[in-house]
């Protein structure tokens, strides 16, 4: 019994950690730019595939598998330029337009990214060997938990703390929060909003790609894996409230746990559960649970 619960929780935490990163990326972009980024799932996939490449290359260069975390994080970070290019060349032009069109542009970006990924990496799934198992496993109350899962959860928490620190203690973070709260006044105070927007979007992108890269040892990179994450991130943001980091954090936890429980109890619903959660959340409480938190 307790074995099941522990196993369930561990799985939930792992999933939550992954979703949190993508949701945080969504969150950051929406909070400042008021743009809902439908391409967040595609960034995730991009990070995943790039992760496989970085790890394979580093393994060929002789890097011991246990240090694979380094190329993975590097992969996620290296993709910042994708976000930068997208923001400056495409997104920039639709800020003045109706929210539907901004939405649709991110949709178009997702489509283009999907095919771009297929072009560079092909459409078959890609795996990295050895990394997952090399971290070993740990036995908690009878449940066997891969250590890598714990590593990912820790990474996610570290990133969450770093982001929290950034937003509250650094100058950039304070500017970003000001821009989120009142873009016009911030602009009037002399802040270059164009630069802020570009940086924020890049940050959002990198959070997504990091999430994708970190997940790689535990599963294969597949072309359509992004949409599931995208939907889940929306569920998370909706639960947590569109606009709060804390909401994204707790929302991810909640979504992960509900998902794990549902899969445990009714495994047939696995494919459907994602969409059912989104629908349930949107129907029951569209404004989220944490809207007043930040």
């Amino acid at each position, binding site marked *: 019994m307790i074995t099941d619960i522990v196993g369930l929780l561990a799985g939930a935490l792992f999933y939550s950690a992954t979703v949190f990163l993508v949701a945080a990326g969504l969150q950051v972009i929406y909070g400042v730019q008021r743009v*809902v980024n439908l391409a967040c799932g595609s960034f995730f996939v991009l990070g995943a595939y790039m992760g496989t490449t970085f790890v394979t290359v580093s393994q060929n260069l002789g890097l011991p598998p246990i240090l694979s975390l380094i190329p993975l994080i590097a992969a996620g970070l290296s993709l910042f330029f994708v976000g930068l290019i997208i923001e400056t060349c*495409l997104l920039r*032009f*639709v800020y003045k*337009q*109706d*929210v*539907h*069109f901004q*939405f*649709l*542009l991110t*949709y*178009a*970006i*997702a*489509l*283009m990214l*999907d*095919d*771009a990924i*297929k*072009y560079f990496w092909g459409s078959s799934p890609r795996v990295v060997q050895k990394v997952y198992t090399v971290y070993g496993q740990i036995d908690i109350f009878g449940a066997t938990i891969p250590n890598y899962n714990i590593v990912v959860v820790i990474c996610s928490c570290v990133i969450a703390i770093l982001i929290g620190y950034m937003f509250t203690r650094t100058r950039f973070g304070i500017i970003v929060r000001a821009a989120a709260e009142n873009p016009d006044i911030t602009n009037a105070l002399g802040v270059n909003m164009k630069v802020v927007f570009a940086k924020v979007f890049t940050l959002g992108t990198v959070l997504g790609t990091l999430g994708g890269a970190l997940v790689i040892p535990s599963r294969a990179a597949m072309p359509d894996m992004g*949409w599931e994450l995208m*939907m889940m991130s*929306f569920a998370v943001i*909706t639960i947590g409230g*569109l606009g709060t980091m804390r909401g994204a954090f707790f929302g991810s936890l909640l979504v992960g746990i509900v998902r794990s429980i549902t899969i445990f109890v009714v495994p*047939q619903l696995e*494919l*459907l559960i994602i*969409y*059912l959660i*989104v*629908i349930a959340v*949107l*129907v029951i409480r*569209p404004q989220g649970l944490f809207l007043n938190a930040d």
Partner: protein
Amino acid sequence: MILRSLMKGKILVGIMAGLILLFLPRIATEHITFVMLGVFGFTLAVLGFNFLFGYLGLLSLGHSLFFSLGAYTVAFSMRQSIFSMELIILITILVSGLVAILIGAICVRYTQIHFSILTFAFAMLFYSFLIKFYFVTGGDDGLRVLTPHLVGTNFADVPKMQFLLREYYYYTLTVTGLTTWVLWRIVKSPFGLTIRAIRNNQVKSEYLGISIWKYRWATFIISGIYTALGGALMAPVIGNVDPSLAHWFQSGSLILMTLLGGFAQFVGPVLGALIFTYLQDFLMSALHYWRFVFGALLAFVVIVAPEGIMGAIDSFLKKIKGGV
């Protein structure tokens, strides 16, 4: 003066278009006629979509649900040995209407982003359902669609391609024309004006006593039925219905068609359907990464010309008239 000649111009264009459509099987190649069959189906589908988007202002990312629903209804009916196309159309209207009533009741309470994500979720839910329950829906392989009976006549002895290019072509043309005319009447009616009022200023409409929720619901239902009809008409042309018809990518196609042609005019989406269908046909055979082109085209339209082709024509005409 100029206005009158413009009006005459529109009528002239309409008559020409009608004549071309009427004689297409005679004057064009088989391939072009075949693709036009797809345009008919997509016409109804996008008219349904734009009724919700252009006139009411609700962006549905999940209209592929209705499109595939219509297509699967045809396949299903045939499995139950119902081959009469008229009966199948009726069943499609009923089924899609019911689904639209249920889903609409949930979705129309929310606006903009939440509405879009909800519709997206429902469509992907349906997609997952189609794949998962293969003993009912045929799973990934889908279901075969046989030749329907038109107006009671069984065309079993006519070769399939000829049936499609002749009998079915004129049948679909008629059905599409009629249903389009019906939607045109709806748009021009007080109902149509009301939903435009709701789109323009929701608060004021509420003050005027209009029940926003009910109108949204009704629009959603009509929209869903039309898109489902489009899917139903397409089914015999495709020959095989599979879950990809419900995928978000199909929703994206409908959106692109609408934006391309112009969402602000009634015929805009129709023009978009025409251009897109032929473009897709051409690109799919020429390019492997046509999704990228598709995305790039959508991005281009959104950034440069969100009003679409009809919008551009409209602005151009206004400039000639010397107006603002």
